[in-house]
């Protein structure tokens, strides 16, 4: 079965090979091996990019294959980040607090310890009592479960309500956008118990690995991200191939006909929506320890729109297209805004890319939609057709 699946999809093998080669070479060139051609900060950038590629694949499946233009998948990504961030912050702070209370003559009560941790995490802004959502923050296992469960459940409930009411097309897009807006507004509130606008920070410091250098940690996360991306790719390639894949694509092309053929369209859509949300959550959980900080601005509606942009530029309906789109646009974006691109003097005016990059992105996006609906991935069709 599995062999058959890979046989039918040679692009999966090609992708895995390319990803493996890339991962190995980056690790070899990183500061860990002493070669240090690739700096730690760049390893982190690459690792984060791989996570973005993973969420882009999820987006591609839900949009490019199933035809649901979700403008809320970054909300699931963010939830994953928050879930793991809570444990990272709690565990790190707990160690600090226990360390400082150690010297005391009278041993602290559990309540005192928890108060001290709360004080450290929330400062004077919140009460020292932990809000209910932090109930499992002391357990890595439970928080990892949250990474999967919370986005999954949210997507399940939201999707069930929406698909049941036959909310489709543009309406669904706006609805998902409202969802991510509501979530980010909620998290922006200080009273949300997740540190409001400041969000969770210091996530790159992994509790228990204080002595390990960031160079090593960044490589570990980079490799983990690559593995997750590879696994995610294979999984989604499996989902969209075969009979289920055909049904999903059928829903994209004509939902009514698929329904008349006797398929329970809502269940398929719900499955795709939920499973992609879970993968997005996982990607977020890998992303934010590399970014170091998560705050509500990360899940503002614009982030999810960018996600759709990546997928469209890379090419919808093909998984490697999503990967290419996410990697290409986000790396290019950081190159342009990072001042890496040379200014273009026009004599009367100098084009500085920090100012003009977004204009270029916007215009090229219009161009892609109009002239290359298949995106960058579409170029491969030419390669395959005339070898």
């Amino acid at each position, binding site marked *: 079965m599995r062999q058959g699946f890979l046989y039918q999809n040679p692009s999966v093998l090609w992708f895995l090979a390319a990803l493996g080669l890339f991962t190995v070479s980056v690790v070899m060139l990183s500061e860990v091996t002493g070669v240090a051609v690739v700096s730690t900060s760049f390893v982190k950038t690459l690792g984060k990019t791989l996570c973005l590629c993973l969420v882009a694949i999820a987006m591609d499946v839900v949009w490019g294959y199933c035809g649901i233009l979700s403008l809320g998948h970054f909300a699931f990504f963010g939830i994953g980040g928050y879930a793991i961030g809570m444990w990272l912050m709690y565990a790190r702070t707990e160690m600090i607090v226990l360390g400082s209370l150690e010297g005391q003559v*009278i041993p602290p009560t559990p309540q*005192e310890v928890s108060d001290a941790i709360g004080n450290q995490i929330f400062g004077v802004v919140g009460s020292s009592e932990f809000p209910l959502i932090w109930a499992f923050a002391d357990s890595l296992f439970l928080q990892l479960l949250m990474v999967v469960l919370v986005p999954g459940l949210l997507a399940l409930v*939201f999707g069930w309500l929406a698909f049941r009411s036959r909310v489709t*097309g543009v309406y669904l897009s706006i609805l998902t956008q409202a969802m991510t807006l509501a979530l980010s507004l909620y998290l922006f509130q200080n009273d949300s118990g997740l540190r409001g606008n400041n969000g969770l920070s210091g996530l790159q410091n992994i509790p228990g690995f204080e002595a390990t250098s960031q160079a090593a940690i960044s490589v570990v996360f980079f490799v983990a991200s690559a593995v997750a991306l590879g696994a995610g790719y294979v999984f989604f390639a499996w989902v969209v191939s075969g009979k289920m894949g055909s049904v999903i694509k059928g829903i994209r092309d004509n939902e009514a006909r698929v329904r008349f053929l006797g398929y329970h369209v809502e269940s398929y859509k719900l499955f795709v929506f939920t499973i992609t949300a879970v993968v997005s959550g996982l990607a977020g959980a890998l992303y934010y320890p590399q970014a170091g900080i998560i705050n509500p601005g990360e899940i503002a509606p614009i982030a999810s729109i960018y996600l759709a942009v990546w997928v469209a530029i890379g090419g919808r309906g093909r998984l490697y297209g999503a990967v290419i789109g996410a990697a290409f646009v986000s790396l290019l974006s950081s190159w342009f805004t990072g001042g890496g691109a040379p200014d273009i003097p026009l004599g009367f005016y100098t084009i500085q890319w920090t100012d003009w990059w*977004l204009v270029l992105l916007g215009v090229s996006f219009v161009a892609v*939609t109009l002239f290359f609906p298949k995106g960058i991935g579409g170029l491969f069709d030419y390669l395959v057709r005339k070898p």
Partner: protein
Amino acid sequence: MRAIFLAFAVLCGTCIKVQAQDLQPLLQTHAEEVAKPSRRSVGVMLDDLVASGLPQVPRFLEQWAGRSVWQGPDGVFFFGTEDGDTLVLEDVDSGETRTVPDDGYTQLRPNGGVRRVIGTALVQFQLADPDIARRQSAVESIARRPAADQLAPLVASIDGEADEELRARKIQLANFLTARFGETAEARIEAINSLAADTSVEARSVLNQILTRDTGVASTEPEGNIARILDPMEAPDDFYAELVEAGFAPAQTGPATIRAALEANIDGGTVGGVPLAQLSTDAARERAYAALARDGLAPPLVTQTTRDAALAAFVFYELYDEDNAAITEAAEAALASVEQRVAFAQAADLALDGLSLASIYFLAAIGLAITFGVMGVINMAHGEFIMMGAYTGYVIQLFIPDYTIAILVALPVAFAVTFAAGVTMERLVIRHLYHRPLETLLATFGISIALQQLAKNIFGTQARPLTSPDWLSGAWVISDVIQISYIRIAIFVLALLFLALILFVLKRTRLGLEVRAVTQNPGMAASMGINPDRINMLTFGLGSGIAGIAGVAIGLYAKVTSEMGADYIVQSFMTVVVGGVGNVWGTLAGASLIGFLQKGIEWLNPSNTLAAQTYMILFIILFIQFRPKGIVALKGRAAAD
């Protein structure tokens, strides 16, 4: 240096010839207070000045409060007018003027608190002044700091008051003062009763001031005009803390005090017989503390029983500052009646705010209702058209200094600019994507980020001023509670105008007929001789143009930045979707629902506007789940996607 000094010595020759009626020496005795006055201490000096009876005093006080008094390097005070680098000085007594370079002279800047005290001191001079501006300022000073001794002069000045409006104001103030400081209880009660229908903040403050009260605790019920006896069991811990503060009871023993007591009594690895290592639970600590208390090493633990017993032994009360029970009763009755009126007025004010917010949402969304609702095109750049309109207003104000003309010019120009932009966008991009609605969303999003960044590059990231003309600044004040700014009324009127205009265009004109035809069936419409291309272009231009006008209006009441469009885009989409797509009435219903709902939620939780927005969006999500086609759902074939 010496020459300058000499010059001052000569100059001061005039002021050395001090006469009894000169103000300067009096000022010099308070030199420090004049130079650096403070609200709390300035009274002494003002009393002195007023008591001197000098005719120069009122003018000096006015100039001082108006920051026109300067101090020379030698400490002498002058009236001064700055003129570039030079200073025109006027002697406070003789009125002689001369011009000097401003080096070494400092302008005196009494702060707001001091200015208020000065204003009060000036009241007696200004109340009967021939200049109406002075009389007004005197009356305002009384209103800001009412005092008992102002009543008689105020009443005396009423008869001679020529200005009708000011006279009414004086009578009103005299009534307020009588209510608080009137000589007889009857007069006061009469004045108080007359306030029962007055919802103004001032009248309420008069009543509240009469009803000020002190809380206290005593072992028996005290003498005096008692407002009420409090039940300590409502919040036992707070009342107990009051007892502790009054010295009637020992302090409560909290975890921190227990811990401190334990730490202070460590006895070779144990405290109160409990080993240190076991003290990591509250129960063990309490046990150890109880042991300490038994040994007299710590005060006994205050338990709930001891606390309640202590509370029961005392009376907690509120005592009016006013001794006369008849007066407080009358004031309570008046206040109760006022508060009922205020509650109604507040509801009305909230409704006005909701109406205003709804009209803003409507104005922002109506252009979208046309492009999205009628044509089915999702224009993510709609917000940027709003922004373009606002910037057009800003640019026009740069060229036309008269704000009224600028606004009148800006509205059509903004329409023209965004109409052109809309038509261009439709021709270049959207018309290729009519059969791919989701892709218009993405393409227009690209245009949106490009336009936003362009605006940043051209106008900078700093907010730009768009100022409303004088006749639009200010507010329509119905009462102190119900008021709404003119600019919001203007937006409301504008929203109504556009509602009428669009209904007219769609229902009563040839263009509208063709638009509706193209919307329902482009193919059939085309075969009837309608050019769908042209209709689409015009419709899109119309929707965009209205967004431009909305931009001017929104910029006038809020801000003009490159990101202002993004604030409205999601909101506008929701307005259209909630209302029901394809129907202008639906947009109106959606805007009203969202506007009033938001205000309602804000009213429930006034301290957190962000939470109100969150809950509103959650409500919208749920609403759409249960009514996917919106409030005003189209029926029949047009309803199909």
